[in-house]
């Protein structure tokens, strides 16, 4: 909402520096987003007279004009077709900042310098409406009225020596979408009085009801409809004061009748509509729902298809306006209009909002109705409008108003306990102060039986404040005007610490481990193309109304998003990447499944890992090898070990999924936790990645459900460990894990550690065989072990491994 300071001052006599006004309004909830001083904006612009127009010696389309500024005569080169001697024109002097450049596609401002245009010097510029930022006309220069005083600063002449505040009005405050509304707030904040415009109206003897009638067929959505008829109106451009007033707040002048309805809207906040009376069939207004599929052309010339829910203003035979949203082309005010009917109605917010949403049209009128207009201002607005039409357009106002308002909407009465104000705010505001604040906002305390120490007060809430319905709403009003800055800043009055210890977060643990192992954390978009979300083979959850196809579905896996990040970074020169992300993935439930929150959708938190490039950073000792699946497996083992303190058994087996080839499932205590593997080459191709990528995805939800061992300290062994190395030659197809298991099975209590330290295939052993060398560690908690004991255990292990796997001990 743009507020003109000059306009505002007509209703409230506020005389504080503009910064203070802006700051007080902002703190009270009317956020001033910008303050524009129009006088400064047009600092080097003047009214001037064109004395002479000569053709340019070197260009057909240009003219060289002599222009009188009152102080001097300037020579200005001008390209406008409409420039002529004797015109009063707006000119920019050298050094002025022209608001819009009509040769720039974005219309950015520029600073005017002295210029040679095709060999002729030009010391200024005659401006168009567009260049001044006052309108869209860029075809020719703006021509001012003949009586415009030569040499007067343009801003003063156009009434633009004004300051405009851009105020962000929150949706709960429709009453502040007008100058009177803002004036009311200013008055309350500065302890001033609002001066409402005096309405003086001369009615003729002809009676309105004899000339028109109104019928409301949908009282629920149109509780009130008031109208007046005015005869013999001259439709023409508005007088300068009206144009200036509208221009200051960025509204374009159309014609005097339309400009007056806009003026009243911006003054009082109530939307009005003027119909060409002679084009209303049957001289009747009927408020009813549209027929399903009915076609209607609005003022903006666009055809619109209506539904049976759309509330319409009709005449005897056809619709003439979409109620509260926009008028129709069929009854629009034109130059030939003689008689007008002015509508001042109140529509239900819900109905207008639905229509506005459905049609995708938001107008000054619909914005006010859907937030809640004042049902009890219709007559005042109508009379204000009629008064101005009479003054400006010379009309004859018929006697009386038509006012269909069968079920009056009365001001609400809300009770307020003075004690509650302080209970909520933590303040000690006196009942007297509370009453003063509320009265200043026209929230008047009703007369109650006098009492020395009143406990409560009954407030009558005017109908222009639909946001105030409850005690708490009144408390907010008190707080706003009292000033949030005046409420004490307290702390710890009720400080209680968490009832249970904050549990250690599994995500934090994983993050800490992975970052220590050189992984970088990612945060990627969970909205993707449907084709990308489908890569995992899961049932995709789709968005009904995506902004674009690229964000039409929710991710079913973190891996595709991570591949996108890998692609991006390879494009930008980083090829060695170790990445992880913790985030939610989503899918539709399969038969027999139920989501935790909603039966149809499964949402779970997962950890994704993706690695590519070299295993170690490039160094000076030679080439680093390519990262492979055992690197990733190692990281996962360390991670799980750190989470589960090595005590929980994880089982790995090969599995298949659509994202990876060579993939391995991870199972802990019987629950599948996730998988890791090598990204399939077709998927890599899709993301334009040449090098191998290894990836994993683990469900944090499942990991959380696995019972975790509490950390309890074990005393350190007092006796030294003894180690022995054993190398077994086995069939090359025998998994190392089986050899390890055979060792463990036969090692007894003393065997505490097994570490594979060499894996060999080659000349020194028979073909089809491999050698696995293990370092075994023995510890006893009770005593120092003897060589004999160890030898005995080792022999037992060797015998068992030989027998179980047909292994040979390598000499």
């Amino acid at each position, binding site marked *: 909402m743009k507020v003109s300071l000059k306009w505002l001052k007509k209703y409230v006599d506020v005389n504080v520096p503009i910064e203070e006004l802006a700051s007080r309004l902002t703190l009270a*909830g009317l956020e001033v987003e910008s303050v524009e001083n129009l006088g400064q904006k047009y600092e080097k612009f003047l009214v001037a007279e064109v004395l002479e127009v000569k053709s340019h010696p070197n260009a057909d389309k240009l003219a060289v004009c002599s222009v009188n500024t009152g102080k001097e005569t300037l020579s200005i080169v001008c390209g406008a077709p409409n420039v002529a001697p004797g015109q009063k024109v707006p000119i920019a002097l050298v050094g002025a900042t022209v608001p819009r450049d009509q040769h720039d596609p974005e219309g950015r401002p520029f600073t005017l310098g002295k210029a040679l245009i095709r060999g002729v010097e030009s010391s200024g510029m005659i401006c168009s409406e567009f260049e001044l930022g006052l309108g869209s006309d860029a075809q020719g220069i703006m021509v001012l009225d003949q009586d415009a005083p030569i040499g007067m600063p343009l801003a003063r002449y156009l009434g633009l020596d004004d300051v405009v505040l851009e105020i962000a009005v929150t949706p709960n405050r429709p009453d502040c979408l007008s100058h009177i509304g803002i004036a009311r707030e200013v008055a309350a904040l500065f302890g001033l009085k609002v001066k409402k415009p005096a309405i003086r109206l001369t009615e003729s003897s002809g009676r309105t009801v004899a000339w028109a009638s109104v019928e409301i067929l949908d009282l629920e959505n149109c509780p009130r409809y008031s109208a007046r008829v005015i005869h013999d109106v001259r439709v023409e451009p508005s007088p300068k004061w009206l144009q200036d007033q509208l221009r200051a707040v960025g509204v374009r002048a159309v014609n005097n009748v339309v400009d007056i309805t806009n003026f009243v809207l911006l003054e009082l906040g109530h939307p009005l509509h003027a119909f060409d009376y002679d084009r209303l069939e049957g001289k009747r207004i009927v408020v009813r729902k549209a027929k399903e599929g009915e076609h209607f052309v609005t003022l903006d010339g666009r055809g619109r298809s209506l539904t049976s829910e759309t509330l319409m203003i009709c005449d005897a035979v056809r619709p003439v306006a979409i109620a509260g949203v926009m008028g129709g082309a069929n009854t629009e005010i034109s130059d030939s209009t003689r008689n007008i009917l002015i509508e001042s109605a109140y529509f239900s*917010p819900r109905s207008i909002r639905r229509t506005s949403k459905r049609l995708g049209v938001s107008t000054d009128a619909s914005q006010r109705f859907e937030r809640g207009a004042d049902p009890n201002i219709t007559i005042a607005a109508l009379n204000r409008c009629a008064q101005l039409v009479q003054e400006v357009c010379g009309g004859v106002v018929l006697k009386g108003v038509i006012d269909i308002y069968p079920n009056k909407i009365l001001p609400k009465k809300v009770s307020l306990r003075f004690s509650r104000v302080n209970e909520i705010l933590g303040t000690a505001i006196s009942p007297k102060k509370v009453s003063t604040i509320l009265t200043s906002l026209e929230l008047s305390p009703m007369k109650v039986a006098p009492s020395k120490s009143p406990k409560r007060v009954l407030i009558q809430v005017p109908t222009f404040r639909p946001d105030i319905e409850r005690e*708490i709403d009144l408390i907010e009003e008190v707080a706003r005007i009292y000033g949030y800055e005046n409420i004490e800043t307290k702390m710890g009055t009720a400080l209680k610490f968490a009832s249970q210890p904050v549990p250690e977060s599994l995500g934090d643990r994983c993050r800490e481990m992975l970052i220590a192992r050189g992984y970088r*954390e990612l945060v990627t978009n969970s909205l993707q193309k449907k084709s990308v979300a489908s890569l995992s083979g899961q049932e995709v959850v789709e968005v009904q109304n995506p902004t674009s196809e690229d964000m039409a579905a929710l991710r079913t896996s973190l891996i595709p998003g991570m591949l996108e990040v890998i692609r991006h970074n390879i494009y930008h020169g980083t090829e060695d990447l170790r990445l992880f992300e913790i985030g939610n993935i989503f899918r539709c439930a399969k038969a027999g499944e139920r989501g935790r929150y909603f039966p149809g959708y499964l949402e779970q938190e997962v950890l994704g890992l993706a690695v590519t490039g070299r295993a170690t950073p490039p160094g000076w000792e030679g080439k680093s090898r390519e990262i492979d699946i055992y690197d990733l497996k190692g990281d996962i083992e360390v991670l799980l070990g750190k989470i589960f303190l090595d005590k929980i058994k994880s089982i790995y087996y090969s599995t298949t999924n659509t994202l990876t080839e060579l993939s391995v499932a991870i199972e802990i205590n019987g629950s599948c936790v996730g998988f890791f593997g090598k990204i399939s080459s077709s998927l890599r191709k899709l993301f334009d990645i040449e090098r191998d990528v290894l990836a994993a995805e683990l469900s944090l939800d499942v990991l959380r459900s696995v019972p975790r061992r509490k950390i309890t300290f074990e005393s350190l062994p007092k006796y030294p460990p003894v180690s022995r190395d054993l190398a077994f030659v086995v069939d090359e197809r025998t998994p190392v894990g089986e050899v390890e298991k055979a060792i463990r099975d036969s090692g007894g209590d003393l065997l505490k550690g097994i570490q594979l330290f060499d894996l060999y295939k080659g000349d020194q052993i028979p073909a089809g065989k491999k050698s696995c060398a293990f370092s075994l560690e023995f510890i006893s908690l009770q005593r120092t072990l003897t060589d004999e004991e160890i030898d005995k255990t080792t022999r037992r292990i060797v015998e068992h491994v030989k027998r179980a796997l047909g292994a040979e001990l390598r000499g």
Partner: protein
Amino acid sequence: MLDEIEQLKQQILSDIERLSDPHELENFRIRYLARKGRIAQLFDRLKEVSPSERPTVGKALNELRALSQVKYDEKKRSIEAQKSETEVALDLTLPGRRGWVGSKHPVTQTWEQIRGVFVGMGFNIATGPEIEDDYHNFEAVNFPPDHPARDMQDTFFITDKILLRTHTTPVQIRVMESQQPPIRVIIPGRCYRNEAVSARAFCVFHQVEGLFVDVGVTFAELKGTLVAFARQIFGSDIGVRFRASYFPFTEPSAEMDISCTICGGKGCRVCKFLGWTEILGAGMVDPNLYRNVGYDEEKYTGYAFGMGIERIAQLLYGVDDIRLYFENDVRFLSQF
């Protein structure tokens, strides 16, 4: 005998001066100080000395042995020092073996900072789903159907009644539905807004919500908590102000501004020359929320607040384009 000792002493002192490498040093040790060296030989002959002279001679011998040992140790140290000076092999400019370096995403770092402050004040942590229903996201937090306030949050819908949450506020309802006051939680989470993507807006972002409901909670305490929060995150010199505002789920509602972290409040492009920059929304929990979860709205009062994590990170680190957080360029990530 004493002459011999004196002679040996002179010889030792002159020999030791000439030593220059570990090999010569070792020869010296064997010749004089070893178990069968020259000094030991003199000790062996001590029994030949008359008993009256023996103490004097013994003392001289002991002194010689001590002196020789001291000289030897000194020489040994100086030769070893020379040795490491001459052995230049270590090039201190050669890069160390560093290994890969990991990094924590700035959104996580910022969340952890925020969490640290509130956990320290006694807040627990609660979470809820990103796929929400209209009831929890809107209706229960006081956005009636067809209410203009719904325009404040452009929504991605999955179906007519299921959507991607536009804020973490629905978790307030989920927490209050499942437990009785006192409640003191912060709620982190990912939210979605159906807005055109730009440097200032992204379809996905992260919020932290706070909720405190108990007997006797006041607006004054809300101010106290949030001022303490701002000072812990941005430093105790930061200016803080509260402005009246509107959110359907709080009444009275407020927005909190801090003095611009770039210009310190003098006015610059980042704060649009206002000197203040908005960091969070807050207010007293609207009684309608209590009604929706079956709390006694007379007995309990409470406050709630919510902030965007990316926004706080922007102010902490100066990141000027929200899209960078989601692009994950390593050149960006490695700065944090």
